């Protein structure tokens, strides 16, 4: 059961209009730039996928990655905790023009909602945001004398992620802080698509060191020299 696919275009072929797409990464660390750009290529060639809801901690930076998706007009809504960055122009322009939606979620709640989706937990309580504008309209409850907000799981149709090593069964490792949301998203999405810096044979990743077990992964494509979003942004690169 080899989950590798031959190229980036094949990897992103099943992503359809209107889907909820989780994109790994925190800022530039862990951003699957090549998968994102392959998706933009498809949109530019075919007009699809469009009207995507994108889940990421941020809302793009500069003129690459998620920012380039927004500029291309593929994104109908962002679900994120911090839609700002060094250069948030792409999102900011569309948001202030009312051309893109925003669901703002506290970062820990975003992580836990994604984790809950993967773990089959439909709802949970968190202290975060209790008593704030962000909690308006959400159920609250008291436990042991303290107040909490009820939050729902957050599922996705697809996750696109960047890993360091993948074996052909989909077992993954990540690189340093690029791990961030990716193991959670891998479990929360109906289909998980991964670009890995290196694809190895089963058995080449120590079972003790697997971070994302292959059960959460559907397709793997090797991108042996992946671009780093922050480095691209600082170099002033635009993907268009």
């Amino acid at each position: 059961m080899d989950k590798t696919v031959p190229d980036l275009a094949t990897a992103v072929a099943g992503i359809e209009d209107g889907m909820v797409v989780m994109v790994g990464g925190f800022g530039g660390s862990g951003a699957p730039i090549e998968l994102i750009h392959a998706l933009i290529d498809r949109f530019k060639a075919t007009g699809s996928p469009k009207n995507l809801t994108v889940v990421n901690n941020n809302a793009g930076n500069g003129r690459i990655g998620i920012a380039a998706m927004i500029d291309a007009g593929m994104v109908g809504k962002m679900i994120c905790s911090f839609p700002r960055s060094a250069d948030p122009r792409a999102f900011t322009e569309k948001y202030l023009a009312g051309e893109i939606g925003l669901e703002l979620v506290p970062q820990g709640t975003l992580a836990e909602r994604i984790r809950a989706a993967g773990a089959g937990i439909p709802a949970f309580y968190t202290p975060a945001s209790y008593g704030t504008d962000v909690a308006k309209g959400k159920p609250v409850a008291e436990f042991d004398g303290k107040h909490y907000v009820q939050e729902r799981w957050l599922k996705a149709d697809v996750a696109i992620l960047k890993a360091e090593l993948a074996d052909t069964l989909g077992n993954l490792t990540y690189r340093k802080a690029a791990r961030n949301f990716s193991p959670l998203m891998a479990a929360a999405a109906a289909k998980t698509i991964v670009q890995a810096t290196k694809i190895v044979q089963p058995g080449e990743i120590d079972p003790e060191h697997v971070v994302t077990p292959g059960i959460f992964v559907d397709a793997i494509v090797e991108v042996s020299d992946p671009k780093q979003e922050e480095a691209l942004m600082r170099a002033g690169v635009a993907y268009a």
Partner: protein
Amino acid sequence: MSTKLSNAQIAWRAAQDIEDGAYVNLGIGFPEMVAKFQPPGKQAIFHTENGVLNFGEAPVEGEEDWDLINAGKKAITLRPGAAFFHHADSFGMVRGGHLDVAILGTYEVAENGDLANWSTGPRGVPAVGGAMDLVHGAKRVAVITDHVTKDGRPKLVKRCALPLTGVGCVTRVYTSLAVLDIEDERFVLREKLPTMSVAELQAVTGAELVLPDQIGDLVAPEL
């Protein structure tokens, strides 16, 4: 031909429906036999609740590593591409719907999909283990069981009399006499022993069988 399938034959029949690459959890005991009967060319990946994915056969006696066990606390081995993880992640795989198939034993299964496989009543020490989680979340929850109890009473019933493990959770039942799907809270007969009439099967089943146009022959090799 025997008048009913042996446990090994029931396990063999259940194994035939597991796709290549499927993620599978086999309940403790009798269901563990299913692993032995995977068809050639189809390689399932087995999950055990205590935090191992892609384990293989039992080690040779004397070679056991007792830190490497399955949910039944039997020693196991690893296949290439295995992974370890903690219990919360493991049950996240279960509840989160990531398993393709869970195959469980049972005391009773009802036509509404209710399962009773954890307690035979209030006497003794109750113990539930992972059963109440395993019945939720797998895309397909199948039961393998003798069609009747040792004293001849139906195990496939209208409503469970024993304490429930889960509500409306079973989708397929493999028995010593038949294969049935649970659809719209009814037992739909898919296969039966060719030596047995529908009436004979109905007589040992505690709920009404729905009879589709096509009913296959349940045939298993001698094992």
